[in-house]
């Protein structure tokens, strides 16, 4: 057993000549909220896809509790307790919210098609349990009463919550959230931030998120890794990242660090 829930060792993934992820190292302690940030096209989502098994990295290892999982089938990785959400919400949109969550419960269920055909006692028990569990999960994410709506009929914010509920149904130990606050207003963003904290504190799920909203990132992260052009350029606590000159340069371009310093000095003066 390793103290890190997931560990990436020199992970690289390229598309043609483009190195989307270049020898990235990452260690995420159990029970933390960890963020990956970086400008557009920095390779954050590609890295995510490597973790969840959508892509197989060309070199490097991904260790989950110390055992390598790179190159394993996606469904196997999901079964191990790694759930994810998507940058653009990807629900089963023609199905109801309840069905979405029930599909999320797939790994926790055992009945097969024969049980379904014969309605064996096992099937009855499991059916009842699944429905109850799904209702509980919908309530947990604040979707009670919306269970019988088709997923695409839900408002955007609720679709995001439903996606999280589906991911939680898998009973994950690691939850990968890809831009959970994208396209949300300030109120919704605050709600989601609280909600992410609640996930960690109540369910003890380790959370890895990609996020563009710096307020959210700096507010809840225990650690941050910054990617730029596929390489890791900085790592540390929110405070360290905020004052890191390479990070500021990546976001604002060359000379940005000096500019930022100038503004910070000015602000200090104003405060004084």
């Amino acid at each position, binding site marked *: 057993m390793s103290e890190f829930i997931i560990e990436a060792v020199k992970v690289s993934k390229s598309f043609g000549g483009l190195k989307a992820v270049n020898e990235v190292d990452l260690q995420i302690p159990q029970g933390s909220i960890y963020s990956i940030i970086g400008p557009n096209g920095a390779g954050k989502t590609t890295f995510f896809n490597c973790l*969840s*098994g*959508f892509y197989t990295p060309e070199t490097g290892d991904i260790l989950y509790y110390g055992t390598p999982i790179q190159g394993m*089938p*996606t*469904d196997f990785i*999901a*079964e191990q307790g790694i*759930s*994810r959400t*998507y940058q653009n919400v*990807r629900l*089963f*949109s*023609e*199905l*109801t*919210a*309840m*069905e979405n969550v*029930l*599909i*999320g419960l*797939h*790994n926790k*269920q055992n*009945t*097969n*098609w024969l*049980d*379904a*055909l014969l*309605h064996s006692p096992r*099937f009855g028990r*499991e*059916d*009842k349990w*699944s*429905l*109850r569990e*799904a*209702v*509980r999960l*919908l309530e947990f994410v604040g979707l009670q*009463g919306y*269970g*019988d709506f*088709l997923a695409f009929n839900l408002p955007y914010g609720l679709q995001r919550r439903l996606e999280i509920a*589906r991911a939680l149904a*898998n009973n994950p130990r690691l939850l990968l959230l890809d831009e959970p606050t994208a396209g949300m207003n300030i109120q919704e963003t605050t709600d989601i931030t609280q909600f992410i904290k609640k996930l960690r504190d109540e369910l003890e799920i380790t959370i890895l998120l990609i996020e563009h909203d710096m307020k959210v990132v700096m507010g809840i992260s225990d650690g941050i890794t910054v990617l730029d052009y596929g390489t890791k350029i900085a790592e540390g606590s929110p405070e360290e990242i905020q004052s890191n000159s390479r990070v500021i340069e990546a976001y604002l371009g060359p000379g940005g660090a000096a500019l930022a310093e100038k503004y910070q000095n000015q602000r200090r003066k104003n405060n004084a």
Partner: protein
Amino acid sequence: MNKDIIRTSRRKGLIFGIVLVFLVLINFHIMIATMISKLLGTNVLRGAFPEARFMIIFLVLYGLWVGWSAVSREGQTKTKLLEGLVAGMTTGFVLVLFGLILFYLLETRTDVRRYLTALSFSSINIFLLDLEGVGVPVHFALSTLTGLFGGALAVGLRSGAVKGFWNNIKSFIINQRQRITEKLPEFVLKYGKYLIYLVLLVVLLMMPSRWGSYNNFVFGMVGLYVILAIGLNIMLGLSGQFMIGIAALFAMGAYSVALLNSPIPHGVMLGFWPSLVIGMLVAVLGGLLLGLPIMRLRGDYLAIVTLAFGEIIRILLNSDLLTDFTGGPRGVQNIQQPRFFGTPFNDVSYAYLIIIAMAVSIFLYYRLENSRTGRAWLAIKEDTLVARATGINVSKYKLLALCIGAAFAGLAGGIFAARNQFTGPNDHTLMVSINVLSVVIVGGMNSIPGIILGSFALRGLPELLRELETYRLLVFGALLVFMMLARPEGLWPSSRPDLEQKGTLGLKEDLYPEEEEEEGRENV
């Protein structure tokens, strides 16, 4: 403004005119005139031609349609009438040109049947309304007048007064319905649905022995298509695999029963029931063999491969290679009839067998759909990648869908072969696959009532309307295009179950288990 109107209605008239010309070229007008003639009580012998007055009725109806559809929704009455008139005139103009050509052919006695098979002299005569040259101006006059009348009809029927009348009738019906439902006792409301099912069931059980073997044959075919469509729906509607070769699986079921129950070529005579099970298993095996190489294919590629699979099986059955084994192009004849406790099957027993098989298929389908397996299939159909990331073993479930769907297809095939006492390669053409596909799509994917309705519409009606037989493909295509435009989700679209209600009820039971138990004791 006026010019625009004239231009658009001219275009519409032109389209209608050209369509009519094509219909005449394939002899469609004769068929319609025959049908009208039969409807009005004058029987037309097979191969004979109807009287010209029925052709006039057809033209009048067509002209009214032209005028009706040319009229736009908004605008003044005068412009609306003008639109109908212009459209009718344009159609008439097209018909005049066409009529002149035909008249020329008639006068010079030029036989064009080498190129246009349907265009015989009698057909031309009927088109010219038995008036020869005079028929041409009559066509023009008829089109113009009916176009105008059609426009007037549209104006009249879409006016406020008529709409108000309809609305009155509608609200009257709704009121009456409410009053009746209020008066009904509670148990009828609660169990009304089941009562209707019961009545349907009784009717279904009564009919086969009463309405004659022809109807049994037709509706048996409908039933077999329902089973086939359920099989295809598991592949296409639930797990989202675009399968076009279902005829191959159907053939596997049919040939298993045929070969194991016929004196030639093998003389095995195993009996119907075990061979039906073997047929299903063979179909499952076929589904598995087809499934393994296509697991990585999607969409159009999958469609092409499965289509090829269907054709390969048919061609194999037809080939010299397997003549000794499957009977080749001659097929398998004299299939032994099943016995049920010693009594041999007749058409009524087949009808019952099909009803039972259909009921069991529907029952099993519902059980599958509302289970972990069914939901996994739906997830794969909606978004394969996400389904995989949710922990679903996509390949396994896709294969499972193919196998279970194949079992239904094999069941239908086995019954089909035994009922016809014959099966050959021509029973398993591409057309069968396309028919089943159309049943599922026209009826409504994932919807059992839709599939039943689709089977009736696409298999039952054409059999009953024998007149249409020659033009079945034409009507078929028109129906599909129309359906895709008007109701892309099918005749009876599926709906998702209300699971939250069910789940919440379960939760309550669990929150207050003691109350539940007490109530139970009281009841005891």
